[in-house]
């Protein structure tokens, strides 16, 4: 552990010592806790500024466009323009709206996203609260975001918002399950629910040990965050603009921030669970965490740039008919492998083999079934015949 790696901790210890000279012990803890809260807020909100710019640029570049390039060099400050403009917009509350809930819902969007950051280890020893049920906390809190969506849609008094709520809830219920299975696989192998323990257990990143669980977790968290290709919550062509249809000005900005903070959460949690967290050679831990997280975030934006939106029936089919059974099988096989071969290199290798074998088996099964099927839709979905 180098000097740079431990720099934030050193600063924190120095601060703790400095405060200890004038304050009682509880006072020091209070101040340090407040500093941690502020840091988490910064870590959660700062990426939003970058991500609004990055998303527009990545989308534009993928489509051979420039993207915003007139606001500052390379359009870098376009997020500030957005912020100033959106804060000075008129704030409209529709007549049909339930005023109290309508005002409260945007605040609810951000809270679960911020809470998840408390259990994410951002560097060696850099975690706000090392809960011994950390990952359970993250999964439980992460699914609370739908409460905000329900509140926002219901209070808008708009039928399109309501339709988007139905979609969102169906989506959440179906994707919570494969997500839980993939997290369970990780917990089983690492032997603990604490996020730090999960990171420390990844001598080889779990994405290489059990790719099925990693991909499932990534896709399921895309669905939880209502990102493309699972963003049928916001189907512009059918239900105008989804849950934030009636929101304008500042309240809409909260949804906007919440959406981008959620992307960063996807990146952070995927990194923690499957990509080895802050572990990596040469560079300090927090840098590795940032690099890996931004890589995952780029994949999220890249997917947005490429894939069209799925239909609701395809979405539910994909979860219930493919992801859930696949991950159930994966969970049992991986458990068996690690029980027999131990958690060392041999176990990891065997697990990878089992994962690939499972994928091949499922693929063969699907192709065979589709070949014998007379349903045009099944053949189109699996074989690519139309």
């Amino acid at each position, binding site marked *: 552990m180098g000097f740079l790696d431990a720099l934030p901790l050193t600063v924190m210890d120095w601060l703790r010592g400095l405060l200890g000279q004038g304050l009682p012990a509880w006072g020091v803890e209070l101040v340090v806790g407040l500093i941690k809260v502020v840091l988490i807020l910064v870590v959660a909100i700062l990426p939003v500024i970058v991500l609004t710019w990055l998303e527009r640029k990545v989308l534009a570049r993928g489509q051979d*466009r420039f993207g915003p390039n007139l606001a500052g060099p390379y359009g870098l400050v376009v997020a500030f323009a*957005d912020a100033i403009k959106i804060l000075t917009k008129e704030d409209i509350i529709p007549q049909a709206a339930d005023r109290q809930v309508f005002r409260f819902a945007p605040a609810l969007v951000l809270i679960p996203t911020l809470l998840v950051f408390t259990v994410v280890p951002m560097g060696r020893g850099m975690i706000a609260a090392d809960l011994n049920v950390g990952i359970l906390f993250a999964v439980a809190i992460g699914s609370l975001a739908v409460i905000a969506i329900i509140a926002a849609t219901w209070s808008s008094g708009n039928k399109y918002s309501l339709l988007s709520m139905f979609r969102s809830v169906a989506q959440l219920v179906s994707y919570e399950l494969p997500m839980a299975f993939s997290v369970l696989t990780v917990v089983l192998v690492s032997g603990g629910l604490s996020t730090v323990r999960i990171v420390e257990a990844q001598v080889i990143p779990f994405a290489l040990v059990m790719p099925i669980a990693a991909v499932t977790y990534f896709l399921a968290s895309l669905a939880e965050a209502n990102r493309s290709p699972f963003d049928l919550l916001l189907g512009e062509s059918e239900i*105008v*603009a989804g849950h934030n249809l009636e929101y304008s000005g500042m309240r809409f900005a909260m949804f906007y921030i919440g959406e981008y903070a959620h992307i960063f959460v996807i990146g952070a949690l995927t990194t923690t669970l499957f990509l080895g967290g802050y572990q990596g050679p040469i560079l300090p831990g927090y840098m590795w965490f940032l690099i890996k997280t931004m890589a995952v975030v780029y994949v999220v934006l890249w997917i947005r740039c490429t894939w069209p939106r799925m239909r609701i029936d395809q979405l539910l089919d994909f979860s219930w008919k493919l992801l859930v059974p696949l991950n159930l099988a994966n969970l049992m096989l991986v458990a068996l492998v690690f029980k027999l071969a131990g958690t060392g290199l041999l176990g990891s290798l065997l697990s990878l083999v089992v994962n690939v074998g499972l994928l091949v088996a499922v693929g063969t099964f699907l192709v065979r079934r589709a070949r014998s099927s007379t349903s045009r839709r099944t053949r189109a979905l699996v074989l690519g015949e139309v």
Partner: protein
Amino acid sequence: MSEREIHHTLTVPETLVPEDLQRNALLTSVDSVYNWARRRSMWPLTFGLACCALEMIAAGAARYDYGRLGMDIPFSSPRQSDLLIISGTITHKMAPQLIRLWNQMPEPKYSIAMGACTVSGGTFDSYAVVQGAAELIPVDIYLPGCPPRPEALIYAFTKLHEMVGQQSVKTVSWYRKEGEA
């Protein structure tokens, strides 16, 4: 000719602030930041009605790309939009919806009438077509052409940006209460 002077359509009295305070340094810089932000992040509500919609889409696509102006988030909800691009023939059947969308947009809001039909009814001297969008809503920029080129639409955007740049927080009408001058 194409550099024709652009006029302020939002006629508001300039006497709200005393003469000696009008050159207030703080307010001027606030104005410049405020106008810059509104120029560089003007999200359009693309109200495509007829053939001009194709040129509007082309202006947003890779070759002309109005996303460069910070406009690359075309919302389908009027609540989050700043600019209404009316592109195409406004029929009487569609007119109430246009007015409704305009009323649903939050201030500050702007509108561009794109194409001959939207400017003046164009070729349709007909029972079914509204003779110009000005009959329905206040239009800030009229863009003639049948249809206008995508560059012409972006030219209209730059002129609209000039117009926005001339406005001032002191004088704009949308931060006042009802009835206030």
